[in-house]
């Protein structure tokens, strides 16, 4: 390398250097991620569902007549008996209330994505911040939050959600908030804190302090960026648990959501078609399979990210 080129590097603006470094690390991590087919399978499933979520409003605007195909208020008067089996008109048949199952399935995808992402964002925001703070300050703050985490981990998750659903009349956003807070103060904090502890003893933290960096500067500039990969990993697992919890609560009929995959199965159950899976498969199989596939897709991506983030799991 010649002297001239290193001089030009220094003269480039800092943000461009940072952006290029960031882009480089993204590309390197992407290469590691793609190496593992498990993550690619998960990502493909997520993209498939994302496509469904995006297509629904377009189809409603163009091909599907809202009076017939609306996922909540639609009704097909041209068919005499509902639930009707799949046909060219209704690719996945209709539900006991005469609504199109495919339209419900696609509409619910949007809700599940919003719920999952909101819950996961809340979880990692809380988890990363509190993990970093308790590792950095130690002492009383650490004890307080770690004992709180013990308490939250102890809570029977589904049972507590059932109690809370009676308390708050949960809708989608409130549910996302509750799930996000419960998992944010629980296990995620403990894991992120132990990672933050290993960052705390790195020489560059010492260097930053010697150079006059304040507490807040060190936490924001040095702790959090180094914790983000791990946070991102736990986002994936939180999405899985959020979608799962929503489906269970909807299935028991305990929350105030207009349409979701869990509600679709709940409707089937209250109409009494649940144990007739053989005859009325389109009422039970698509919704159940959708919940399962999306949950496992996020879990698979999480697993694959684990191998990227955790160097001890990498191949030699």
């Amino acid at each position, binding site marked *: 390398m010649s002297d001239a080129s290193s001089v030009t590097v220094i003269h480039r603006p800092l943000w461009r250097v940072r952006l290029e470094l960031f882009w480089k690390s993204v590309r390197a991590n992407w290469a590691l991620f793609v190496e593992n087919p498990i993550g690619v399978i998960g990502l493909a499933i997520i993209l498939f569902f994302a496509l469904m979520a995006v297509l629904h409003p377009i189809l409603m605007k163009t091909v599907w007549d809202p009076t017939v195909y609306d996922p909540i208020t639609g009704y097909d008067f041209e068919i005499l008996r509902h639930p009707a089996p799949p046909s060219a008109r209704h690719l996945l048949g209709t539900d006991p209330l005469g609504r199109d199952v495919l339209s419900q399935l696609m509409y619910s995808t949007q809700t599940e994505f919003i719920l999952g992402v909101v819950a996961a964002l809340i979880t990692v925001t809380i988890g990363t911040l509190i993990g970093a703070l308790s590792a950095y300050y130690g002492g009383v703050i650490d004890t307080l939050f770690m004992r709180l985490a013990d308490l939250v981990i102890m809570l*029977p998750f589904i*049972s507590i959600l059932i109690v809370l659903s009676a*308390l708050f009349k949960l809708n989608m956003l409130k549910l996302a908030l509750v799930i996000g807070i419960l998992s944010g103060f629980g296990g995620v904090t403990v894991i992120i804190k132990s990672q933050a502890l290993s960052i705390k003893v790195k020489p560059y933290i010492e260097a930053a302090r010697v150079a006059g960096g304040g507490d807040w500067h060190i936490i924001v500039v040095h702790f959090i960026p180094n914790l983000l990969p791990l946070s991102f990993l736990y986002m994936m697992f939180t999405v899985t648990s959020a979608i799962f919890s929503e489906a269970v609560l909807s299935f028991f009929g305990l929350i105030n959501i207009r349409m979701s995959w869990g509600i679709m199965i709940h409707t089937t159950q209250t109409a009494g078609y649940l144990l007739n*899976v053989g005859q009325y498969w389109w009422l039970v199989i698509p919704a159940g399979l959708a919940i399962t596939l999306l949950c496992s897709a996020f879990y698979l991506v999480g*697993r694959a990210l684990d191998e990227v983030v955790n160097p*001890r799991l990498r191949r030699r």
Partner: protein
Amino acid sequence: MTRYVLRRLVQIVITFFLFQTLTFFLLYAQPGDIANQYLLNPNLPPDAAERLRQELGLDKPPHLQYIQYMKNFLTGNLGVSFTNYPRPVIDIIKERLPRTLVLFFTATIISFYVGFALGKVLAWRRGGLFEYGVTVVGVTLYTVFTPWFALMMIWLFAYKLNLFPTGKFVTPTLWQNAPVDANTVFGRMIYTGILGSVVAFVVYLLVRRLPPPTRNMSGILAVLAGLLGMVIPWVQSPLARYAVDILWHMVLPILTLTLISFAGTMLLTRNSLLETMREDFILAARAKGLPEKVVRDKHAARTALLPVVTSLVFSLAFAIDGGVITETMFSWPGMGLTLLNAVVQEDIPLAMGAFSFTGILALLAHLAADLLYAYLDPRIRYS
């Protein structure tokens, strides 16, 4: 070590107290109370609901009720269930907790063995088509929508193939003329189960001292002896057909739980084993010229077992919470179903009792996992 355990016990008492307080006020804050269930009954006079509230003490301010509850709890009095009036809560829990624990304990043990065996293979054959296939299937089962999956299992095995009952604990027609009730038979089944495990363990210890050709079969021999230890006490018993009926009802829930949970152990074993395989002592074992199977089973797997065993203990702590879904789907009258019904019907004493036992189980499992960790890994010392 003793000091560590004592300190942990003090922490456990404090955490449990906070847990009790939190759940009590959460339950109390639910709108309405048990008396609301009777408001729509036309046969009751209008002041009946108010009188019921007074009799149950629900008209008192919440903090007084809380203090009263905690006082009673400390003297071992968990109160009387509202929905099963006048049955004491402790009586209901004594009846139902074993049902949940047996179900989850059996399923956890089976899924642990399956998961550990598969996890070893996955780590050893890293990167193959086999690994990806098993992982995708395992994760799909692990994250499956449990109520739906239970339903599919019921539909396939109970409805289509007619192999197992669709749910519940016993077949009522069979038990009409039974000399004893189901709880007695179930209690005896638990005792024989414990007896069988002890026999299996003793046989395992004895056979391991024998010379190699017999010693290699110690696992199989132990399992056979354990099964014999469980079956022999029942052969002559007139109650055997009733025990078989309960077992027949247990198969499908246990199968479902095993399929759902084995992947957890499998994936954990794989990761733990991959981390262990980077250690120097594995390199040393290979350098000694030991066969791959010995390196895997005797050197790597033993060390990799640590986090797996502790997670196994921990997963039992959440039996009641997991039971809410499984037991509801199979109408299995255990703690999970009891908790769900108690919460939905606002039977506060029963719900508190169920929550308390969930909390106690979780805290004790947490402690047991930590102690087990120190016992299995001599490098860990608590002071």
